[in-house]
């Protein structure tokens, strides 16, 4: 079966990654930031799987699977933090959450 070439997949992956990165940089709501992070991760996953298909090796797929597992864990922790911050009646704004500065 002949599908689109690997370049197309990589282009889509780069687009997803760029969208996510843009979201992380410009949005201030932690929920949206987390969402954008997920998009970045999925862009990376897409690139991994595309390369795996291209080079006919399973390593990239396995790597993508573990990235998914890590992403799931990361979302749990991130959402947990968001809920915890919200419960303490603190504004959900990543710029305001800067107490760790030097």
């Amino acid at each position, binding site marked *: 079966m002949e599908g689109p070439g690997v370049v197309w997949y990589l282009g889509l992956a780069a687009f997803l990654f760029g969208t996510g*990165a843009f979201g*992380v*940089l*410009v949005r201030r709501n932690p929920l949206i*930031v987390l969402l954008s992070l997920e998009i970045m991760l999925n862009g990376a996953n897409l690139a991994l799987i595309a390369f795996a298909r291209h080079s006919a090796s399973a390593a990239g797929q396995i790597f993508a699977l573990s990235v998914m597992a890590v992403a799931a864990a990361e979302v749990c922790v991130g959402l947990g933090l968001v809920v915890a911050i919200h419960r303490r009646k603190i504004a959900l704004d*990543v*710029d305001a*959450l*800067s*107490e*760790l*500065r*030097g």
Partner: protein
Amino acid sequence: MIPGAWICLTAPLVGTALILLGGTRISRGTAAWVGTTSVFVAFAGALWSFFGLWAHGSDNGQISSAWTWLQVGGFKADVSVIVDPLSTMMMLIVSGVGALIVLYSVGYMDGDDEERRYFAYITFFVFSMLMLVESGNMLLLLVGWGLVGLSSYLLIGFWHERESAVAAAKKAFIMNAFGDATMALALFVLIAHSNSLEYSTAFATAGHLSQTTVDLVALGLLGGAVAKSAQVPLHTWLPDAMEGPTPVSALIHAATMVTAGVYLLARLNPIFQDAKNVALLAAALGAITLLMAGLIALVQTDIKRVIAYSTMSQIGYMFMAVGVGAYSNGMFHLMTHAFFKALLFMTAGLVIHAISDEQDIRKLRGVGAVMPWTRWAFLIGALALVGVPAFAGFFSKDPILAADLHDHWYGVTFWICGLIGTFLTGLYTFRLYFIVFPGEPSAFVREHHHRHHGREGALTMLVPVGVLTVLAAIGGWIQFQPFWEPITHWLSSVAATTPDATATNWDDLVSSLIAPALGIAGIVVAWLIWGKERIAVPKLPAVQRVLEHKFYFDELYDEIFYKPAVAAANIFRRDFEEPVVITSGNDIGEGALEVGQATQRIQTGLLRTYVLAFGVGTAVIAVILLVVR
């Protein structure tokens, strides 16, 4: 016979482990008896392997390997024990005399605050010594050698709150470590040439090496032997080692550890036969030591130190024997010496124990009146030491002299030294006896003699003394050269006497007549001077000063090693440590602080700046990688 050897080796180690693991959960008495039992079990193992070998015939020695301990390239060393005439003889002496002495310690150490620690140490010592004599290759021999030094250090410094004991322990350890180092160097040379430390390979290799190499190997081994056996010039630790408890002095510094050097020379005799000059050097050092120690013993006032110097002197005889090649004579003297010297130390211990831990012979006058049995036991030990006919020393010392007399002009020189030594032995031993035992008890003795263990000592102390008294009296009858020589035959397969040192009947006759005569002459002179006080002690202030300073060896080593080291340390402290090391500490701290303050501003706390920095950084690295490729 093989299982016997393994039991003999491991039983004391099991004893140590039980006492250490038991800790304070077991009573002091239990710890003492666990230790004693373990050493008696070791003795039973030694008997088993001895009689097993006897049944097989003495030339059927075997090496039994438990497992491969280390393997590097072609070099391989097993954990193995050797069961041959020499090792079984040493096993019997070490575990037999050791068991008696540990039993004696039960009474001697009773009531000490740290009895458990003592018994853990002493069983560990017995294990180390058995490891040394049973080791199936030279690497294990070196391990045993080092462990013996360690346990000796622990036991000398047993009363660690006493500053002098700690100093003495350190001194012994350093001197011994020096010997360990020279021995290790010798083994390295052997490994370099034969890639093996098995006895048989090493002996075969030694025959093919150049004379210089063999001499170097033998010299390194001799260094170890001299340090462990307290011969000149590495002898200064032994008198100080008397700081340890008296049973320790009896076990380590008389019966077993210090004879390790003699064992080494006998065990490795093929190497020393290839390096005849080094062997003769050993004999010469022995001759010098026996004269020097005999002279120093004449002016000592501490009961244990007199016996310690006498030990050095007797080991000098053994070195003289194994140096010229009369191995069985040396080993025989080692055995009888273990009996009578352990006896002398134990009787001295009885006196010290009964008279409030006093060791100064000038205060102990007339002890014999309050402790008659101790007096007789000491007398028998002293007669055996001097070599009066019918007692043990007579049978073992005179053949050594005869063997020396037979061996060229240098042998005759050693022979003369040995004879002078016999006279000195009679003199200093009976100086001690006549000062301490006969006559009216001094006021000090009357006042301090206490009887909480009966008149002379606890039963556990008296039984070993009794056994050793019998052995010191009749233990020498086992061999009477040239008529009856079972020990020489027993050892002939591993350490046969060289032709040069095989005495003729004439040599034996002359030596057996002159040596005891001189010994008895020494006793008579001692009796005239200190017993009857007929003649005064000759007044020779210069000689006396030299002897009291022990020929200035300690002072010499102070000047050569200690003081330059201290001076160098002071210079480095003043010119390097204080200006550089100490001040640089603050500078480094301040520098780190400044850097931290400068970089603090990067940390904004804004998530987006971090992400941006991270992204830009990754991009830069990616570009660099692409460009470089």
